[in-house]
C-alpha cells in the first residue's frame, strides 16, 4: 500500500465537507447573480467557479499531496496554453477600431 499513500490522506468526512463547500459555492454564485454588482457580476461568478474548480483539482483529483510535481505542472500548463489562446485572440478583438 505504500505507493498509494498519497491518496489515503483524506477521510470520507473530508470529501463530503468539500462537496458541501462546492454546493455552497454554487448557491453563492446563483445568489450573487441576482445582485447588481455592475462589472463585478461576471468577475465574482468566475472567481467562485475557479475556487470550486481548484477545490476539485486539489482534493478530488488529489493534486495536492501528489508525490511528484509533474501532475501539477501538467494541469498548470493546460490552463497556461488555454490562457494564451484566449488572451492573444482577444488582443485582436479588443483592439479593433470598431466592435
Amino acid at each position, binding site marked *: 500500500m505504500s505507493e498509494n499513500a498519497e491518496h489515503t490522506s483524506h477521510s470520507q468526512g473530508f*470529501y463530503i465537507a468539500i462537496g458541501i463547500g462546492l454546493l455552497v459555492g454554487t448557491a453563492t454564485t446563483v445568489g450573487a*447573480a441576482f445582485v*447588481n454588482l455592475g462589472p463585478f457580476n*461576471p468577475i465574482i*461568478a468566475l472567481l467562485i467557479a475557479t475556487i470550486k474548480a481548484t477545490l476539485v*483539482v486539489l482534493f*478530488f483529483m488529489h493534486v495536492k499531496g501528489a508525490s511528484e510535481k509533474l501532475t501539477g505542472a501538467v494541469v498548470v500548463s493546460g490552463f497556461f*496554453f488555454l490562457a494564451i489562446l*484566449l488572451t492573444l485572440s482577444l488582443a485582436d478583438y479588443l483592439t479593433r477600431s470598431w466592435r
Partner: protein
Amino acid sequence: MHDSQTTTVEHEAHNPALLHHFADAQQQKNAASLGMWLFLVTEIMFFGGMFCAYLVYRLAHFNAFAAGSQQLSIWMGATNTAVLIVSSVTVVLAVKAAEAGKRKLLVGYLVVTVLLGMTFLTVKGFEYREKFEKHHVPGPTFKFTDTFDDNGKQIPVNPKEAQLFFSLYFVMTGMHALHMIIGCGLFSVLAVLAWKGHYTPGYFTPIENAGLYWHLVDIIWIYLFPLLYLISRHS
C-alpha cells in the same frame, strides 16, 4: 517479466493486470496516471476552443447574450450543478472504497454515480425540449422575440445574435453532455468489472482514471453554468 529487485512483489504475485513491458506495477500505474492527466489537458484545449468563441461573441454581442441567458432555466442549471458536484463526491468515495478493497461499497458508489449522471442528462433533456418548444434551437425555425429587461428599459435584440448565443449553448452543453454519456458508459462497465472483483487495493487504476475524467467533466460544467445561465440575471 519484471525485475526481481522491485519492492512490490506482493502485489504482482496476484496481479494479472501488469503488462509485460513495464518493470513493475508502480511504473505502470504512474504511466497510466500521467497519460490520463495529459488526456485531460487535451480536453481542456478542446473545450478551450469553444470558450474562446464564447468569450469573443459575448464581448461583441453582450445584450443578445444576456437576453439569451435569461431564457435558460436557472433552476434546472443549478440543480444540474448540484447533481454533478454530488456525483463527484461519490466518485471520490468510490476511489476510496476501491483503495480500501471494499468491493460492494465501490460498486454501490459507482452505480450511484451513474444514476446521478443519468439524472443530469435527463434534466438536460428537459431543457433541450423546452428550447425546441420555444423555438430557441438555431436553424430555420429559430425565433427570438424576447427582450432584455434591464432597469425597466426594453432593449431589443438582434435575433441573429441571440441565435449565436443558442448555437454556442447547444454546442458547448452538447459536447459536455456527450462527455457525460461517455462517462456514464465508462462507469457502468467499471461497476460490472468491480462486481466481478477485477480491482484490488493494489490495482484500481481504471477507477482512479475514470474518476479523474469525471471530475474534469464536472469542472467544465462548473464554468459553463455561470457563463451560460447567469449573464446579467439581476434586474
